């Protein structure tokens, strides 16, 4: 299995200026992130708000320009490609966004929303475009007549199916799923997740699945990276994270998941608030909330230790 996405030392800082003259401060949304997404995997990025998980996804697609670092897609570095040369890669790398209520243009028909990419990338006749749209709508569980409706005529789950159709009609290889089901009810979520799994098989897709929901990760993912304040704290295969988690933050996250139907559980909840990403703590960014924190954690940032092949952890005490 080859590497489809290879991200090295990626950084994305957002500049914040209170006024024109004041000194800018930087929010380090993505801070020195390195990881590889193998072809055909479902790579989950898990984190809470402010972890930079959405920014990471957008930066890899170059919807946001990276501050530094490299992004290699299928052996080709795309970090600094100009807009013209980037277009071909845009076709191959698509996104499904979080909020299906804002991700579809409110004044356009479904066929225009889905057909937009076809018009840009392929020199197709209108009847060919029509067929392609019809075909993809049926694959995502909608019908031909839905083409002539506006987004507001659909439920949240159906809208998310339209967004998936818009991404897949271009026959991409790589799909960033940015919390694709967090705005949906559970019964709808289950069906959308099942659809995503099915489509991945059918089109041999690779997913980067961004979410805060560990249960969904357990259901979907093959690989997992856990982010906190712009950094990857732990990454590994699904079993590495769910069976052999080493980082205190990962353990805390797993512990916080409500159990279903097995009674109350005793958990060690991390204390305190998530720090402001514009002012991250020194040393290990998690030390302010970590139950195991020692003096060294405030002073020195831990390295990325490889615990077993492919299982990395950023903690002084994870060995």
């Amino acid at each position, binding site marked *: 299995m080859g590497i489809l996405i290879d991200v090295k030392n990626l950084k994305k800082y957002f500049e914040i200026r209170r006024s024109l003259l004041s000194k800018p401060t930087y929010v380090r949304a993505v801070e020195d992130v390195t990881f590889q997404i193998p072809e055909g995997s479902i790579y989950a990025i898990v984190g809470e708000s402010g972890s930079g998980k959405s920014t990471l996804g957008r930066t890899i697609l170059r919807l946001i320009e990276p501050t530094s670092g490299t992004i290699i897609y299928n052996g080709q570095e795309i970090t600094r490609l100009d807009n013209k040369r980037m277009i071909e890669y845009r076709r191959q790398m698509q996104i499904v966004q*979080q909020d299906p209520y804002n991700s579809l243009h409110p004044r356009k028909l479904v066929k225009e929303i889905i057909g937009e990419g076809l018009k840009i990338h392929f020199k197709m006749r209108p009847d060919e475009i029509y067929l392609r749209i019809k075909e993809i709508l049926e694959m995502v569980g909608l019908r031909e007549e839905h083409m002539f409706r506006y987004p507001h005529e659909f439920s949240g789950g159906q809208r998310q199916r339209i967004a998936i159709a818009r991404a897949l009609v271009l026959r991409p290889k790589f799909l960033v799923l940015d919390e694709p089901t967090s705005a949906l009810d559970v019964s709808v979520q289950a069906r959308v997740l099942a659809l995503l799994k099915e489509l991945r098989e059918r089109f041999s897709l690779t997913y980067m699945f961004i979410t805060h929901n560990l249960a969904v990760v357990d259901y979907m993912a093959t690989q997992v990276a856990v982010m906190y304040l712009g950094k990857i704290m732990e990454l590994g295969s699904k079993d590495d994270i769910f069976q052999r988690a080493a980082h205190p933050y990962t353990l805390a996250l797993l512990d916080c998941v409500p159990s279903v139907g097995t009674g109350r559980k005793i958990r060690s909840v991390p204390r305190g608030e998530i720090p402001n990403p514009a002012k991250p703590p020194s040393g290990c960014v998690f030390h302010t909330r970590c139950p195991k924190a020692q003096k060294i954690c405030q002073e020195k940032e831990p390295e990325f230790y490889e615990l077993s092949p492919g299982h990395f952890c950023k903690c002084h005490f994870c060995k």
Partner: protein
Amino acid sequence: MIGTFIVIGFILIAIFAPILAPYDPIKPNLPQRLKPPSSQHLFGTDQFGRDIFSRVIHGARIEVWIIFLVTVISGTIGTAIGITAGYFGGAVDEILMRITDIFLAFPRLILAMALSAMLGRGLTNAILAISLVEWTVVARLARAEAMKIKSQPYIEAVKAVGASNLRILLFHVLPMCLSPVLVQLTLRMGTIILTAAGLGFLGLGAQPPTPEWGAIVSDGRSYLVQQWWISTFPGLFIAVVVLGFNLLGDGIRDILDPRLRR
């Protein structure tokens, strides 16, 4: 409701002016000069014996023409500049908005006067002058809309699909900006008439014998004490139509903004 009636009435008058007007609005009829309102001349006649009623009715056509052209010109310039500034942001935004600020720094009527004095007298130049004053309002609004829309996920989605900036701007951002811009333009129509009448009154707009309302008011200036009707009737029409446009604009705004609805 009232606003809609007034504006519809105004437009109907403009359309059917040749049928409604009993006399020729331009041809002098000196024996009939300065007649007070009567059953023959509903609003009286002016110093050349022309029927004021007919002139006012034909004047509606001129006003509609002015409104139409100013709206189209200022709407186009304003929207183009506004959405470009709002969508690209940064330096483009700074430059375009500072230019807009320069226009906004002067009182409107004075700027319109200066511009039409510069361009020379005449209806066409007056229309140009008013447009050059009016576009700034549209530009600011379109900019604000474009800034709001460009950060919407559906615009990001189009970018992800591979659309160029120009394509996003024209096919995705622009259509969303149009409806607030149109409301604003409706609200401005009353002001446009006022400015046009102001210029006409000062002799900078439509030239005699064109029956522009402001110009007719101006014609009657020297007869105001004895022959009050010459200035009063066109003046009343200006007031009523401006009121009508303002009421209509308010109504449209209320309909589009559910927060103000009761």
